[in-house]
């Protein structure tokens, strides 16, 4: 290991990575997790590392933290953190650096905190581990930190357990924990990806404020160019384990030179503000009319007074014209997914009417609804979990139609034709889901739904689990299918940018109710409700760049 021969690139780098190569175990799709990557994180700056899944950005972060699993060893390169060499350093030295010189926050604040320990214990633990302070001074420091990250009632918060906090609050606790010993470098691994858009905006602001105030250096890993535009001073773009482009945020965002960066930036969905062109075949016929639909979840037992009542959908009404797409947008817990499940009758509603082609399906029993089921189909969020791993694609596609009376030979022919239609080759018919990538599986999911020649497609977060470039392809495919078949669509998503790409009309949901409904131009450019305004304002990277203060790059 040539750690000594590479000079640290001056004092202005808090973190410097030189020629880092990390091997992958044999039999993986490539030989290296990251290959010969070099970059510097300058003191007092925010460096964004951006890339799609599998680009090696998280491996890079874990290598810097010394948290790589033993299975994937560093084969060459050097990392200097605040002057000290990381690669080849003994475990004990690395442990001394972690939490003190370099800290990390993670993607999912729900699982990143120990459920059995109070917030206070988890923060003071950092101080204890590094032998800092007394019991009383540690407690004082923890409360100081909780105040600093903007949590309400720090004294009370100290004794809270994580399950009591919201996702945003938990991420604030994580940040407090990471800041406990005022580290030189903070590594944030997709810290806002699991959060709602309004919460994301707050957390991004918090990280930026703290970074400015303390002159901390932040390495921020993300897959979202919107986030990059929001906070980055400089950017490193990674693809398949290699750094393909790096430079200042201005430079990379405005004039990307590498084709991959250009493709990525082009694929980022933007708020269009423009309405979708009406299709030629469009009719004015209403295919779906919802009137006063509601659903309340009850849990626990009414007998012993421990019952919990959660109104998920409250008095929702809308209608959908045939061949058009209605976007249902909302944050987590807004009731958008419950609404989707009610429409396809995976759940029974408590009240209201669902008029599908003029017939109220809300009151139909399971057996009465069964003949109608093929006409309303769903595309699910998780292309990994929604396909049975033990069935071939052919079986997945044909089992439903055959059960509804289609001869197998015909089903097979249609399935092959559909696979070609959604952009897969006919050879996919005999293969198993694990042989396909996420985007391909989502295509299979779409083909499965189309097998029934449905009149109405309900897509529940159908592109949320996919990388942006794949996302763009799937959105294009859905648009193409709608133009060809005239199917109507309800597109449920948390991502306003995605909704603006594909929807003719958007309904914004909050706490089980539709707070605003209108064409994208109205929702994004002239929102009528305060909540919609807040949502639109929170979208990262959508404000004009010149309103954002940019740190001066030396």
């Amino acid at each position, binding site marked *: 290991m040539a750690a000594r021969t590479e000079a640290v690139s001056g004092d202005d780098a808090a973190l410097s990575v030189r020629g880092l190569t990390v091997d992958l175990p044999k039999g993986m799709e490539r030989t290296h997790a990251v290959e010969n990557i070099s970059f510097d994180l300058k003191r007092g700056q925010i460096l964004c590392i951006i890339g799609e899944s599998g680009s090696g950005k998280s491996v890079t972060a874990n290598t810097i933290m010394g948290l790589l699993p033993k299975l994937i060893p560093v084969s060459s390169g050097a990392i200097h953190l605040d002057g000290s060499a990381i690669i080849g350093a003994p475990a004990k030295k690395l442990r001394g650096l*972690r939490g003190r010189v370099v800290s990390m926050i993670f993607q999912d604040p729900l699982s*990143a905190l120990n459920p059995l320990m109070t917030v206070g214990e988890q923060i003071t633990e950092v101080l204890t581990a590094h032998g800092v302070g007394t019991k009383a001074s540690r407690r004082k420091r923890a409360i100081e930190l909780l105040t600093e990250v903007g949590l309400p009632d720090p004294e009370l918060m100290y004794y809270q*357990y994580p399950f009591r906090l919201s996702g945003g609050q938990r991420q604030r606790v994580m940040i407090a924990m990471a800041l406990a010993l005022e580290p030189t470098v903070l590594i944030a691994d997709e810290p806002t990806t699991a959060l709602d858009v309004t919460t994301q905006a707050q957390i991004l602001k918090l990280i930026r404020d703290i970074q400015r105030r303390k002159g901390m250096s932040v390495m921020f890993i993300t897959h979202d160019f919107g986030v990059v535009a929001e906070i980055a001073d400089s950017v490193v773009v990674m693809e398949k384990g290699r750094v393909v482009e790096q430079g200042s945020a201005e430079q990379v965002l405005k004039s990307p030179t590498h084709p991959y960066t250009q493709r990525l930036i082009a694929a980022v969905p933007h708020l269009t503000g423009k309405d979708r062109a009406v299709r030629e075949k469009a009719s004015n016929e209403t295919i779906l009319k919802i009137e006063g639909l509601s659903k309340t979840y009850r849990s626990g037992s009414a007998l012993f007074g421990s019952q919990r009542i959660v109104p998920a959908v409250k008095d929702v009404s809308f209608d959908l014209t045939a061949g058009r797409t209605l976007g249902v947008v909302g944050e987590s817990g807004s009731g958008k997914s419950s609404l989707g499940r009610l429409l396809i009758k995976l759940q029974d509603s408590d009240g209201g009417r669902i008029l599908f082609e003029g017939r109220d399906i809300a009151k139909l029993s399971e057996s009465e609804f069964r003949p109608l089921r093929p006409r309303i189909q769903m595309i699910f969020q998780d292309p990994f979990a929604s396909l049975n791993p033990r069935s071939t694609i052919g079986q997945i596609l044909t089992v439903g139609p055959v059960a509804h009376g289609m001869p197998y030979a015909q089903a097979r022919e249609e399935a092959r034709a559909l696979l070609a239609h959604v952009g897969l080759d006919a050879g996919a018919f005999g293969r198993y889901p694990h042989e396909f990538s996420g985007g391909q599986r989502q295509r299979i999911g779409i083909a499965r739904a189309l097998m029934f020649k449905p009149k109405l497609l309900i897509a529940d977060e159908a592109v949320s689990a996919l990388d942006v470039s794949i996302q763009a392809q799937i959105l294009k495919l859905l648009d193409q299918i709608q133009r060809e078949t005239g199917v109507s669509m309800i597109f449920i998503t948390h991502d306003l940018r995605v909704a603006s790409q594909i929807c003719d009309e958007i309904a914004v949901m909050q706490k089980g109710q539709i707070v605003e409904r209108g064409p994208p131009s109205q929702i994004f450019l002239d929102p009528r409700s305060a909540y919609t305004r807040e949502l639109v304002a929170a979208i990262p990277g959508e404000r004009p760049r010149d309103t954002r203060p940019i740190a001066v790059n030396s």
Partner: protein
Amino acid sequence: MRGFLLNRLSQSLVLLLIVSVIGFVVLNLIPGGPLAQFGLDPSMTQDDLNRLKEQLGLNRPLWMQYLDWAWRLVQGDWGHSFRDGAPVLDVIGRHLVATLLLMGSSTVIAIAIGTWIGIRGATHRYSVFDYLATVGAMVALSIPTFWFGLVGIYVFSLRLGWLPAGNMYTIGDGSALNYLHHLIMPSIVLALVHVAIWSRYMRTATLDVISQEFVKTARAKGLSERRILMKHVVGNALLPMITLAGMQLPSVLTGALVTETVFTWPGMGRLFLDSLGYSDYPVVMGLLMFSAILVVLCNLIADIVVAIIDPRIRLS
């Protein structure tokens, strides 16, 4: 929390009711009935048998017998043994301590050793230790308890002469050491299968927790591996194990019945077999109800302990 307790308690009562009905009906469906043993006695005439039936109330319809029995049970009168006329609760009480001693000591052994093997197997996954523990668990699970007992007696009592072959104490020697000496082999034999079960579950639970994000957080904070294991991993991994401990109780009880027979241990297992042999229905029903209550109670305690430890249940 109060609602949760009331809810669980009412469930338990319904469960006990069902157990008692099934037990009572099944026992009385067995051919022969409680007086079968007298049928073999040539000096008993049919008149004698009828009189006995009349005295014991066995000529009434079954549902009446059940209600009568159940009502007395609730009031604390568990009936009298057909064998010696002693109250059932007294009979059970005489054998209870021996069984509880055996069950308690083997449960402690099983949990202590099983937890250790499970955690070590998870932290040293695919090591020689892990491999041997897996094979050992399979062996312990696939060989019946009585066989281990017999082999143990042959090796340690007959061949080596280290441990007594049976009984709870040597007559005339009531010292604690003597009790302990007699307790070693039966409790280990009874514990074996539970060490195997416990270690497998503990290994899985530990592996689950180790791959959780908060363990990574703990590493990122710079904690020592030891503290991560003790403070973050073990606590979370033991949580599902408490429920398991409650659920394992019936199997420990069943195992105790077999072990007691092998080691002539004067506990409830021996009493149960003897009472069945004598068609001593009141004692058999008493034992059935007693063990049902014990199992229900322990499960209830396990749930309450989990609720106390887990803030997600305690505070919601």
